[in-house]
């Protein structure tokens, strides 16, 4: 049962990721990416990481991708990838390269098999993450806030028109 669900979701995830890189229209690409993020969130749910699933949807799908779609809408009219591509042969090399990379990673996974299953332990809820976040990872957490602040300032500086 769970395996079937997993494969269904995985199929959606892979298909939407492929859709992203195949479709010419960036809006379609962005919407495919949203689907992809949603299916990854579903997989988080299957991995019992409920907080992450919700955060994934809220942050990624709800905020980041909205930003993307917004930017595409602002920029795109008449600027799709059209016209001849001078670097087309080089680009097509990327496909076997990607395939090669995939094989490589999968080989690594096969060579190093997963450890044996253990009984369920830590809960994937907000409490466990919160506890870790504010004890072991307090310093990185604070660093993140500094990073966000820096990003905020940077974006404002970029977006503001020259006076």
């Amino acid at each position, binding site marked *: 049962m769970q395996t079937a669900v997993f494969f269904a979701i995985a199929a959606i995830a892979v298909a939407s990721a492929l859709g*992203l890189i195949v479709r010419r229209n960036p809006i379609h690409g962005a919407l495919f990416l949203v689907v*992809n993020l949603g299916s990854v969130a579903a997989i988080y749910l299957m991995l019992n990481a409920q907080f992450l699933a919700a955060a994934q949807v809220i942050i990624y799908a709800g905020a980041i991708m909205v*930003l993307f779609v917004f*930017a595409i809408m602002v*920029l795109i009219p008449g600027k799709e990838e059209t016209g001849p591509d001078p670097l087309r042969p080089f680009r097509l090399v990327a496909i076997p390269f990607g395939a090669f990379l995939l094989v490589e990673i999968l080989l690594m996974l096969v060579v190093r098999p*997963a450890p044996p299953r253990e009984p369920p332990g830590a809960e994937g809820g907000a409490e466990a993450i919160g506890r870790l976040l504010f004890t072991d990872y307090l310093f990185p957490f604070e660093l993140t806030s500094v990073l966000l602040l820096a990003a905020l300032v940077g974006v404002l500086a970029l977006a503001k028109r020259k006076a």
Partner: protein
Amino acid sequence: MILLVPGSYYTGLSAVLFAIGVTGVLVRRNPLVIFMSIEVMLNAANLALVAFGAQFRNADGQVLVFFVMTVAAAEVAVGLAIIVAIFRLRPRLSVDDLSAMRW
């Protein structure tokens, strides 16, 4: 909830997604799409982290994912601002035109 699906399935899916992301970055010309492909790669990495975390009964992976998300948000904000700023001035949307910083 018991893991009924072998953990390697999740990491496998993560690998596939990562490879697709890499291909997207290499194949596409539109910087926005490249950016989105990077997001796919980040996601694949996140998925791997969560899967490993679940295997080892450890929430650290999830915390890491949380950080990745935060960083991704910041990165997207800055990146999009840069792209918008550049392509306000240009007629075409292609990374090949962005050679001003090459020398």
